């Protein structure tokens, strides 16, 4: 389903809201909704884009592709150029990549702003960039045909050459580029049939690998400007707290310290480098006005959430009559689930470099959200958006944190630059990054489910409690309907199984902890809840978990294909596993892609050991199979880190965790073998950055049940007693 601008009255509402929130931001914002969620496909698939915005061909035949998505590891600096090069008939060995500046032509085709997120880079560029490449090819051929005085139809392009076989004429793209650039855009563009693809569908090596293995890749933290000061900020230990008073006498005495300033988010220490800034910050004495955030403690919040989960909430989905369904139940169960706040914990802590002048602001940062950040920076600096330039560096991981809908780290950096009046680099320490909020929300769930005599699900009532990510952001008008944030219930309200009486309800309590999308967003928690509960129903029915799922999935469902492919490759029900090893399975759809994962797990000293994960994915047509493998592996590791170890907790409003010793990612020695199997498909490509994350926690939990008979209903698992 696609919604055009004219048919979408809420777009006007968005523009009004965004004007209030981010004055100066005037953007075409279309968010077509599918199942209540942003559908990230293209709004105008047949549009002709000016190739020169995306392709620069030099006289030496090198081709620079300007990429309008942020490279955070997901491979867009390779996969997006592949789309262009395929249709351009370019010599892949001569392709270079440059990150796009902020401009309307680089807007996301579905979101109407420059943004990298929602696992949407490929699906939203699939038509657009192939058309860009094809347009350029047509113009190059046209330019050559005109020079040679031959019909275009007699010329063809191959490997960055235009060739006229009859006359033997041959001209390189570099030699034709100037003439081609002067021609008007073609009116129609034909795209290749997939059977003619030369690059798409092949495992092409990443273009960014050479610079990432010799240390020359530039991340935000690697930007150094002449005269630049390094700034560390002492922020409130409690969310929402403000500086009451501070004493910087000792801190100012340190060599290298250039100034200490009160800024809206705290006390900024500016120095000649990181170390003097850090040591001076440690010497600050600050009294905080902590505000209501100081009352937040995790145990109390958990109790409140669990209480709320028993009460009626807003109805997100209602099929049949759950109350009647439970009355006819053969067997039923109910359970509570809890998952904690999670920090994104990208390897590169947040940082921003700002060079602010009276009429211009230049920003270097690894952002996923250029248009919003530019608007916010402009507003903060008192400039027009056109006066703000953003250089998107490589991102040392993003996972959603670097697309902040409030532009938190960028606004703060501009506020600091305004006060200091020199180029500044704001560096977040690991502790700042871990304690900086904008977490995956903490959630509590209550589920009651029942089966009929034949073992099939009869009734299902799922109540979800957790903060809305989207509320109070510019996305609210699109993604919150009737008080229900689509991202809070995704994966739960979109449950694919045939259950005649099904109800999903939502509570969205508010508090001072800022929350944000985290790789796979709502699915990061709902998949755990629903896929372990389905496993419980299979057990209740006395059925095999894979067979049970296949028995209650609709006939044409794409879930089936991945489930069967994973089961086949894992040898589900056939392979003899080592003693004390067990398989657990889960399947989930997110970002329009389907992933099944089977985890082989054992327990040793009460610790979960995941030996192997067999994943099957259906993401439509595949651009770069090795890129898909990388993303599924990475998404599994990200999800497994959270499942086994991840938790951000609060004590008197203070975040307890601070660094990698107490907010623990998966380490090398815990890494499972991972196999990724891809379903062959000719469907439109769908998301791949996030869909691998949701199924891993339930797959592991279901394996643990098989080993111990104990259901894991709380994450992280390492805090659960398994014996």
């Amino acid at each position: 389903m696609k919604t055009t601008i004219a048919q979408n009255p809420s777009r006007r509402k968005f523009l009004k809201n965004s004007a209030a929130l981010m004055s100066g931001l005037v953007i075409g914002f279309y968010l077509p909704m599918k199942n209540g969620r942003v559908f990230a496909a293209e709004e105008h698939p047949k549009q002709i884009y000016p190739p020169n915005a995306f392709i620069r061909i030099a006289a030496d035949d090198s081709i620079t592709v300007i990429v309008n998505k942020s490279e955070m590891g997901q491979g867009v600096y390779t996969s997006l150029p592949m789309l262009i090069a395929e249709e351009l008939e370019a010599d892949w060995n001569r392709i270079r990549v440059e990150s796009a500046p902020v401009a309307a032509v680089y807007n996301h085709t579905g979101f109407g702003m420059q943004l990298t997120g929602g696992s949407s880079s490929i699906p939203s560029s699939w038509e657009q960039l192939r058309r860009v490449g094809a347009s350029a090819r047509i113009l190059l051929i046209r330019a050559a045909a005109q020079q040679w005085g031959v019909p275009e139809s007699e010329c063809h392009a191959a490997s960055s050459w235009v060739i006229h076989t009859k006359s033997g004429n041959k001209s390189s793209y570099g030699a034709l580029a100037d003439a081609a650039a002067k021609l008007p855009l073609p009116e129609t563009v034909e795209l290749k049939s997939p059977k003619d693809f030369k690059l798409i569908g092949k495992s092409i090596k990443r273009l960014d690998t050479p610079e990432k293995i010799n240390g020359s890749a530039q991340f935000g933290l690697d930007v150094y400007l002449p005269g630049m000061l390094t700034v560390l900020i002492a922020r409130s230990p409690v969310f929402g707290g403000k500086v009451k008073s501070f004493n910087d006498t000792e801190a100012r005495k340190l060599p290298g310290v250039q100034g200490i300033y009160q800024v809206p988010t705290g006390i900024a220490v500016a120095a000649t480098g990181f170390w003097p800034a850090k040591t001076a910050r440690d010497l600050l004495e600050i009294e905080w006005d902590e505000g209501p955030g100081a009352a937040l403690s995790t145990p109390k919040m958990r109790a409140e959430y669990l209480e709320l989960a028993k009460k009626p909430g807003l109805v997100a989905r209602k099929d049949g009559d759950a109350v009647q369904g439970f009355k006819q139940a053969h067997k039923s169960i109910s359970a509570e689930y809890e998952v904690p706040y999670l920090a994104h914990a990208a390897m590169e802590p947040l940082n921003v470099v700002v060079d602010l002048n009276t009429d211009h602001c230049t920003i270097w940062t690894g952002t996923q959200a250029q248009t919003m950040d530019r608007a916010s920076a402009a507003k903060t600096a008192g400039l027009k958006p056109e006066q703000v330039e953003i250089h998107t560096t490589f991102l040392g991981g993003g996972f959603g944190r670097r697309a902040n809908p409030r532009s938190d780290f960028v606004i703060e950096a501009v506020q600091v630059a305004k006060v200091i009046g020199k180029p500044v680099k704001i560096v977040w320490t690991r502790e700042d990054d871990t304690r900086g909020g904008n977490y995956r929300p903490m959630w509590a769930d209550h589920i009651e489910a029942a089966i009929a005599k034949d073992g099939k699900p009869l009734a299902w009532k799922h109540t979800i409690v957790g903060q809305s990510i989207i509320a109070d952001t510019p996305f609210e008008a699109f993604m919150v309907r009737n008080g229900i944030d689509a991202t809070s219930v995704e994966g739960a309200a979109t449950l694919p199984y045939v259950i005649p009486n099904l109800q999903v309800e939502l509570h969205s309590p508010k508090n001072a902890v800022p929350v944000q999308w985290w790789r796979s967003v709502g699915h990061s928690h709902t998949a755990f809840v629903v896929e372990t509960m389905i496993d419980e129903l299979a057990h209740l029915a006395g059925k095999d978990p894979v067979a049970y799922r296949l028995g209650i999935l609709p006939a044409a469902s794409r879930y089936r294909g991945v489930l069967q492919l994973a089961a086949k490759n894992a040898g589900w029900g056939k392979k003899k596993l080592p003693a004390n090893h067990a398989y657990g399975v889960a399947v989930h759809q997110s970002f329009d892609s389907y992933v099944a994962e089977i985890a082989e797990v054992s327990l040793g000293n009460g610790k979960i050991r995941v030996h192997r994960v067999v994943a099957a994915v259906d993401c439509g047509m595949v651009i770069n199979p090795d890129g898909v493998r990388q993303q599924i592996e990475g998404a599994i590791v990200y999800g497994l880190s959270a499942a086994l170890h991840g938790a951000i907790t609060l004590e008197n409003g203070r975040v307890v965790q601070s660094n990698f010793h107490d907010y623990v990612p998966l380490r090398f020695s815990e890494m499972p073998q991972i196999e990724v199997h891809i379903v062959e498909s000719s469907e439109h490509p769908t998301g791949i950055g996030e869909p691998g994350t949701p199924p891993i926690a339930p797959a592991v939990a279901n394996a643990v049940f098989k080993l111990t008979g104990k259901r894991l209903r709380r994450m992280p698992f390492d805090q659960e007693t398994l014996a």
Partner: protein
Amino acid sequence: MISFKINGKATKVDVDPNTPLLWVIRDHLQLTGTKYGCGMAQCGACTVHLDGRAIRSCVTPVSLASGKQVTTIEGLAETTLGKTVQAAWQEVDVPQCGYCQSGQIMSATALLKENPHPSEAQISAAMDGNLCRCGTYNSIRSAILKAAEHQGGTK
């Protein structure tokens, strides 16, 4: 004034001797391939070689480098082994976001120098201090095994 060699070049810096070597490498010498990740030897992103051995530069005071040889990712290709490891990383196409990879490569090279043919368990033990949030561990293992193989082949 503290003197040491970095990537073969003699250098002198005038800093507080307690300054971590990481920040001297980055802020003073502007060799930015060595990364800051945690500041407490938990993630390995800052790994460099001090007289050939892998150290976490974020917790190593620059004074300890005095009179010694520091090698960073920028100088790694000076040695045959360094080149071999980088070539294996390229062959396997290891990096995703890439931020941790300098540290991973420095740790891997130090491992292979001490133990040219490590077992999988030895690789796992040696690399356990290097975090990767993108989850490239299996590719790293493949690259180390490949480098060991190539190194053996040239003996």
